């Protein structure tokens, strides 16, 4: 068999395709022609170049590994009636829901699977509202949508949700996971970062504004290199704030005390390179830090070439983000004050404060000075980064990844498999290297085979629970292969053609029949027709639902679960972004981190190592706005699979463990939400009692029934069925008796038993798992 696998004949897939056509070995020439005509692995790189024995990638892997699927540019083929050859030629392929369905259905029918029918409107609004806003629909919103008789009701719903501010808050959370956002430094002191929330708000704003993704990434990697001088527009201000991305990793402020700067710099640089590669490219550069990559065509030197783009990054906690015009105003305001204060200072200098006769005047002048000084304005600043100057410190390859063993100096460069030489870099200004801008442009380039695929896959993953590529941060050989490669490629190309608009991407996906499928339960309007049941056959053939013959049931993540509790109970407060809030955490848990105790005694020298609890009600805001302290995640969120913030998180785990049950069932936090909901429903009842009297049943009868209905509508977006009504009634009756027996008044017992019902409903699977 060796004969059939000469190095020249790589890639493997090409061989497999060609061999059957070439039954005779005499056709060598024909084979070689075919391979030479094969498309380029990456524009600019010829396969022949990669098979050059001098090429470093060839030297390392002997021509192997080049058939990595994600290395090939996304490719779109014509689909009769949907994608024409002309559109492909003109690069005008656009996003469309129908095309998504075509690709999905094609594979379903090939596998003999039948797609699930569309789910009912109640489930649909619940699903799409959680997906886009991370909040439940209100009962009124559900009713309006269910009863909407006009065409495009669903499309209009999607538009409304995409336009809501809550959309930005929800989707910012996903991106913050990827870039490992936290509000503190980590390590021993784990100091609060007083300004980094501006980056969080920048992400929220960018999503709300539907900033094109290529711009979004340029700003984060090189926002400072995109702006010349003081920012002239709010967009330029955002561009500077975006460099907070370069600061998000953990930072050991005590490293210098022990002369561990070399170790620390190694960590910082490695972390920046690895996070950037994971977040934007789905490349696992962390795996080639000590040696060449075990699976992918990545060299050890590629890790360090990539690091070199960040070599000049200098942390800045004083990045001025005031508009240029405002900066001028502030400067002249301060100059005017200075003019006022100067003569006062001069007069003061002439006085002798030790002379009794001078003392009153001295006092007077001092007060004047400090009052004038107090009026000085300082411009707003942000935590971000710039380059330290035009020259970057040298980057060396570390032998076996060990920072104490530097070897040859390395110039900034993209993965050698794409471009073996050094990157071409021109500095936009004298005081910066331009390295990060060059990197950003390369990542944002339409020719980059990874960027668009990686991002559309992230969005797909959130809407279906699993991405088309299940390993969203790894598009290499050890990651998953795409389940629908043609769909992924088409999505990537069409999305770029649609101006990298994330909202359009949502629209296309959400309006597809694939997204709207029932998750499992037989939709109400189809219940009678046995033929539309979710076929057992599907479950047998594709139990993982890899081909998407139905929608997946998705569990709310930690923040959405807490937000759901807040929203359903009615406790949720609007928060106009800004500084993070600090919820109550039991003292004994604060003891987990001695750095916090140090701050309690005031021993942290103002470094803000502590826990700065806000009043309880003030923290009833969306979880996105709660502080993310590296050494002490908020316990309620942590138990529901909150990811660690040290490395990029591409996908939340959803484990099911008993401590979650204890938290949601027993914790005072959770019980409080049940209490608030019960109180709210009781007061609604009183309001409703003044309305028209219904015709049947006693008042008491109607009252408990309508309360149960309200609980279900609010918490589950639906009414209870008769069996549910009856078991809920049982609970209410039994608990009512119990509380009366314990000496509570009848009214009080009524409220307490309703609270217990709310508590039960907030613990239901249906409360956490969305159809």
């Amino acid at each position: 068999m060796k004969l059939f696998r000469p190095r020249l004949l790589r890639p493997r897939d090409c061989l497999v395709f060609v061999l059957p056509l070439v039954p005779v070995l005499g056709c060598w020439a024909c084979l070689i022609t075919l391979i030479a005509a094969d498309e380029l692995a990456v524009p600019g790189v010829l396969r022949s170049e990669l098979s050059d024995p001098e090429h470093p990638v060839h030297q390392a892997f002997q021509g192997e590994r080049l058939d990595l699927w994600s290395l090939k540019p996304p490719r779109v083929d014509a689909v009769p009636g949907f994608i024409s050859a002309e559109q492909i030629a003109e690069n005008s392929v656009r996003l469309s829901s129908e095309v998504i369905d075509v690709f999905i259905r094609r594979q379903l029918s090939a596998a003999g699977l039948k797609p699930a029918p569309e789910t009912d409107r109640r489930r649909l609004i619940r699903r799409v509202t959680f997906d886009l806003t991370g909040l439940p629909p209100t009962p009124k919103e559900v009713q309006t949508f269910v009863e909407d008789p006009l065409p495009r009701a669903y499309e209009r719903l999607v538009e409304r949700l995409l336009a809501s501010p809550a959309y930005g808050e929800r989707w910012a959370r996903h991106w913050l996971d990827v870039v490992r956002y936290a509000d503190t430094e980590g390590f021993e002191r784990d100091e609060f970062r007083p300004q980094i929330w501006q980056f969080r708000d920048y992400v929220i704003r960018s999503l709300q504004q539907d900033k094109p993704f290529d711009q979004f990434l340029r700003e984060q990697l090189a926002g400072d290199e995109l702006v010349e001088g003081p920012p002239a527009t709010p967009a330029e201000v955002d561009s500077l704030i975006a460099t907070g991305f370069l600061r998000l990793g953990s930072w050991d402020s005590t490293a210098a005390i022990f002369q561990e700067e070399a170790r620390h710099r190694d960590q910082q640089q490695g972390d920046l390179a690895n996070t950037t590669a994971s977040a934007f490219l789905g490349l696992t550069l962390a795996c080639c830090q000590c040696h060449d990559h075990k699976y992918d065509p990545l060299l050890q030197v590629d890790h360090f070439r990539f690091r070199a783009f960040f070599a000049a990054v200098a942390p800045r906690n004083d990045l001025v983000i005031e508009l240029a015009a405002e900066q001028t105003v502030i400067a002249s305001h301060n100059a005017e004050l200075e003019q006022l204060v100067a003569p006062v200072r001069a007069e003061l200098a002439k006085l002798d404060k030790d002379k009794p006769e001078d003392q009153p005047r001295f006092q007077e002048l001092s007060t004047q000075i400090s009052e004038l000084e107090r009026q000085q304005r300082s411009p707003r600043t942000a935590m971000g980064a710039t380059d330290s100057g035009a020259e970057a410190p040298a980057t060396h390859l570390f032998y076996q990844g060990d920072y104490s063993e530097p070897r040859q100096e390395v110039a900034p460069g993209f993965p050698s498999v794409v471009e073996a030489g050094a990157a071409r870099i021109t500095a936009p200004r004298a005081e910066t290297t331009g390295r990060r801008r060059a990197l950003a442009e390369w990542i944002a380039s339409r020719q980059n085979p990874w960027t668009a695929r990686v991002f559309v896959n992230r969005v797909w993953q959130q809407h279906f629970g699993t991405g088309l590529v299940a390993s969203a941060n790894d598009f290499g050989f050890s990651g998953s292969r795409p389940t629908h490669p043609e769909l992924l490629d088409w999505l990537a190309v069409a999305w770029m053609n649609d101006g990298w608009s994330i909202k359009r991407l949502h629209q296309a996906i959400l309006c597809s029949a694939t997204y709207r499928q029932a998750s499992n339960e037989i939709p109400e309007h189809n219940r009678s027709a046995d033929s539309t049941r979710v076929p057992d056959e599907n479950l047998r053939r594709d139990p993982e639902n890899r081909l998407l013959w139905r929608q997946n049931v998705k569990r709310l993540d930690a923040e959405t679960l807490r937000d759901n509790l807040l929203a359903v109970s009615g406790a949720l407060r609007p928060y106009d972004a800004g500084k993070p809030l600090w919820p109550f955490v039991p003292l004994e848990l604060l003891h987990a981190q001695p750095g916090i105790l140090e701050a309690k005694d005031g021993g942290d020298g103002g470094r803000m190592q502590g826990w700065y609890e806000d009043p309880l009600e003030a923290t009833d805001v969306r979880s996105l706005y709660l502080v993310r302290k590296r050494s002490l995640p908020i316990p309620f969120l942590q138990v529901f699979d909150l990811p660690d913030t040290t490395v990029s998180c591409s996908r939340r785990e959803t484990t099911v463990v008993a401590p979650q049950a204890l938290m949601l069932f027993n914790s005072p936090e959770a019980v409080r939400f049940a209490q608030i909901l019960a109180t709210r429903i009781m007061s609604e009842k009183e309001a409703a009692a003044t309305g028209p009297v219904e015709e049947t049943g006693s008042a008491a009868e109607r009252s408990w029934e309508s309360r149960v209905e309200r609980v279900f509508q609010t918490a589950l977006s639906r009414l209870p069925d008769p069996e549910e009504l009856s078991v809920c009634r049982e609970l209410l009756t039994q608990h009512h008796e119990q509380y009366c027996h314990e000496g509570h008044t009848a009214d009080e017992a009524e409220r307490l038993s309703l609270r217990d019902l709310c508590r039960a409903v907030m613990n239901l699977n249906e409360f956490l798992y969305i159809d």
Partner: protein
Amino acid sequence: MQTFPQSRRQFFERSAGGFAGVALAALMAEQGRKEGLHASPFDPLNPLAERLSHVAPRAKQVIFLFQYGGPSTLDLIDYKPVLIQQQGKPVPESLKQNPDKVGGVFNHCKDELMAGPWKWSQQGESGLWFSDLLPHTARHADDLCLVHSMYSESSNHAPATYLMNTGAILGGKPSLGSWVTYGLGSLNQNLPGYVLLYKVGGLGGSANWSNGFLPAAFQGTQFRAEGAPALNLAPPAELANVQRSTLDLIQRLNRRHADQHPGVLDLDGRIASYELAYRMQSKALDIGELSQETKETHESYGLNDENSSKALFGRMCLLSRRLVEKGVRFVQLYNAVDKLGWDGHEQSTDYHRRNAAQTDQPIAALLADLKQRGLLDSTLVLWAGEFGRTPMMQGNLGRNHNPYGFTIWMAGGGVKPGQSIGATDEIGLRAVDQPQSVKNLHATILTALGLNPDELFFESNGRQERLTGVAQSWQTIPGVFG
């Protein structure tokens, strides 16, 4: 949603028969054992189900007595007569020139050697040396295996503490306890598999017992030494009488919901988790009932000691024995009762007197108790800080952090007792004979548990992550198992 093809498919085949969640999870765990699935992938419905190790284990359970702050093992268990002779003298020139990878230790110290005011003696048949700071532990000389030649990769608390607990100087990786429970599950399904006891944790906070990228089932759960054993174990008091009926309603509605969602595993898992939580309430409360122990036991652990810190640590030690007895896989204690721990930059002698007084007797009682109950053979006890301290004086009679050489000890769990391994140089500054990395220590512990460090991995961000890093980059500490 979890996607574990094997168990999922099995589950699906069985769920066609209509089992209830709890019974099913139990059945699957049972099945796994029968089929002899070695280090099988964990079952998402019953993540703590006991799993078989790769090879026959020497130890089944672990108690990790973490010594926060960096104890000066020079003052406790690393006897250095030269240091005593050279008291007040400068560091020998030959020892100053070493190119240490980790910087900074010398810079903060005086060029002056300092020996503690301790009396040293050899103990037991083995003749291991102990200072008079640890009279109780000294009686267990013949149970201990001392490793004198440990070194760390940072002289800084948080990175070194992360390294000792998670194998990496950056936080965020799964801790030793998480890896062990991930690898082996637990022996008792009604308690968490990995329990922590602390009054004050280590610097770097809860990242020291984080599950990192491992599923949350393998997170460390804090137990308290006083009051109810764990947070949220019981509802607020006024709900105590309605707990079961409320749970019944939840489960009833959940089962209806699950019936409407065939093939969605997590729903059954969640039903089971509520039953487990309910059982846990009574089981865990029972763990905290120290009144079930005899008066002698209370005395031996120092529970009635007038030193309240010692009494507290004694309760932690006694609780850890009770937890191990009930089958908890991994128990970790933190010694510190305040934020200082062993971190004696000034007046090091005071720090060591205080910490030794708090911990010595309870630890000795724990060893004796485990031994007497026959639990020591299958329980590996590990005593280790994040690093040691310098033989040079820092500031006012203090000692600085020393990652170059320090001592840890192990006992029980198949470890050959009454021996010492490796050595530091004549003043106790650097490990010179058989230097051992923290990675080797972790590999040794996994090996004791019958786990192959290279085969214990988890895929994260495209990488096969292991506690011990790159395959074959470790070795077990030679001689530990005899």
